């Protein structure tokens, strides 16, 4: 596919598999995106949905803190991260559970993070994923710097940077895009436009007709894609990644998707989002269309589907138990990681906490 064929100012967006499961632009599909790969990625999307659902269940049961669900954004998550190669970096915001899983962050760690342990961000050293980033859009700059490092090392990697529609309003997004343009940084800016920033709808974020057209301000291409279409997301991201690897610089992708759930478990969307709007989105569910397509291709059946869900439910429950078992309650952790060498007064504070816990009869070891 040719990114330039989809100038956002012309209103075009890339679509390959429509919401009824029909391939509408087979010619755009890269040869590598075989039905087998589609099945594999679909499988990851199911895994994500199940893992996501499990997190909500854990949260309701008081076993997890606030959680930001990915419901509805599975294609945007998986279709994009699937194009990465081993040396590439992935820079998430906080709604990329699926992308992170696909790139090797253990689900157990993701649960540990949301359960409230910093150890949940201590990924295996070979996993090239940055930790979840709470301050909206600040991570876009980290991604630019990281990709810049790759360029300087001439390691032919690229960096995939995620953020939401709301993030595009922030100054650091602008500075990240601008640096990326100026220094021809090998990165892809991947915007999951899920139409909301908590309660604030997309139209309040900007008067621009699209988010993709914001790339014009930085001298590199932007493109709109149906973010609920796994094939289109994969195709567009692969093209952008190829551009980055070829030293041609960054691309902005606006993946138009929809947040089917609440912002986080602390949110009540009924206060701002009409139920009809949500209902109207159901046919566009990114899994639904793939189920139709893959069934037609004879690659899945109702039975295999059932098995898949059961398998992942088991996996998610195991991961939750493992996460709980692994969480350190050692108060030393509060102090031990701020500096390579602990300043004396921090050491003193650590001792103090020990004394306090001892006096209270609590074991310092948790």
């Amino acid at each position, binding site marked *: 596919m040719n990114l330039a064929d989809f100038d956002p100012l012309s209103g075009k967006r890339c679509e390959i598999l429509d919401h009824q499961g029909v391939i509408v632009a087979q010619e755009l599909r890269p040869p590598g995106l075989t039905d087998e790969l589609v099945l594999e990625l679909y499988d990851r999307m199911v895994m994500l949905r199940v893992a996501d659902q499990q997190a909500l269940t854990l949260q309701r049961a008081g076993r997890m*803190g606030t959680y930001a669900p990915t419901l509805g954004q599975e294609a945007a998550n998986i279709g994009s991260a699937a194009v990465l190669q081993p040396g590439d970096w992935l820079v998430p915001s906080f709604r990329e559970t699926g992308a992170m899983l696909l790139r090797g962050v253990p689900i157990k760690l993701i649960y540990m993070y949301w359960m409230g342990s910093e150890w949940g961000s201590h990924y295996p050293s070979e996993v090239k994923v940055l930790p979840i980033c709470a301050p909206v859009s600040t991570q876009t700059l980290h991604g630019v710097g990281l990709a810049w490092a790759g360029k300087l090392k001439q390691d032919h990697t690229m960096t995939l940077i995620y953020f939401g529609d709301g993030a595009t309003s922030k100054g650091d997004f602008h500075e990240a895009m601008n640096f990326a343009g100026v220094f021809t940084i090998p990165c892809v800016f991947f915007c999951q436009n899920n139409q909301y920033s908590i309660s604030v709808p997309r139209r309040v974020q900007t008067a621009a007709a699209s988010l993709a057209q914001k790339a014009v301000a930085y001298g590199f291409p932007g493109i709109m894609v149906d973010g609920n279409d796994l094939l289109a997301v994969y195709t567009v991201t692969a093209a952008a990644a190829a551009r980055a690897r070829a030293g041609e610089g960054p691309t902005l992708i606006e993946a138009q998707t929809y947040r089917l759930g609440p912002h986080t478990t602390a949110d009540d969307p009924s206060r701002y989002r009409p139920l009809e709007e949500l209902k109207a989105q159901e046919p566009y569910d990114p899994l639904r269309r793939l189920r139709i397509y893959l069934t037609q291709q004879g690659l899945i059946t109702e039975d295999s589907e059932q098995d898949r869900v059961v398998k992942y439910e088991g996996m998610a429950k195991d991961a939750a138990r493992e996460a709980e078992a692994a969480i350190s309650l050692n108060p030393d952790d509060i102090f031990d990681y701020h500096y390579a060498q602990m300043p004396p007064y921090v050491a003193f504070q650590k001792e103090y906490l020990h004394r306090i816990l001892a006096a209270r009869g609590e074991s310092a070891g948790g």
Partner: protein
Amino acid sequence: MANLNMVEAINLALREEMARDETIIILGEDVGQLGGVFRVTDGLQAEFGPERVVDTPLAEAGIMGAALGLALGGFKPVPEIQFMGFLPPALDQLICHVSRYRNRTRGRHTMPMVVRLPYGAGIHAPEHHSESTEAILAHIPGLKVVIPSTPYDAKGLLISALRDPDPVIFLEPKRIYRAVREEVPSGEYVIALGQAKVIRTGETVTAVAWGSMVREVIRAADLVASQGISVEVIDLRTISPMDDETIVASIRKTGRGVIVHEACRTCGLAAEIIARINEKAFLSLAAPLERVTGFDTIVPLLKLEDHYLPDAFRISRAIQKVVYY
């Protein structure tokens, strides 16, 4: 007169003042239709319309800088920053402009504005949702910083802030947003900014706190009362400009003091309070002043968060330490 928690008291203050003063404009992320993530602005957009209760794009510098312009244009903006952890992008406008406009223009332009933001730890939220960096704000000349500890005070202080001619940062201790209810009169009453309150008189030792720590100090005072220790408890209420007179008067009486805050210890506000007591009541001091504070660490995620915050037990030990020095 109604039985209100702090969220409701603040909401009431905003509602009454907005009805009274047409120049008040609330702006921020999710403050309108949603009524704020903590519901502090609940119902205000419905009552005063979307021009006066404005959902903005997600951009803290934008909110603060546009608020500054609105103030120059004759309005009294009330920007909300959703959490204190997301104040840093707005610090540039606060430090470089909001705090300086009056001085820069020798009084030609003033900056009446109330910046509201929930702050502090203790609600088991994710990273960046537990910050208490009030000392940074207190270091900036030209800003006022107010922190209520009760629903009643929250309303009275906020009304004063809304009528103040200078920029006021109004920090809302979100941990106690809904912790207590008390009688809060409807209609106008003000609590002057810049005045600490002795909320319990005592003879043995002075304890100073603000925000959610006031409650812990009261509990600590109760704990040590059985040992015959009588604690004078001061709720600072306005962090800046600081009412050191009230603190110093109490220390002159008790000769001993404990200062409590949840913020990091180093360069926290307790240090400034100690420095002022040192300057003004040195000869009255019978023991070193004690600090009970958060650690010089990043607030832990929720599994360890409870270890971070000062509580009645720690405070009571510090009280005993200064008393039995």
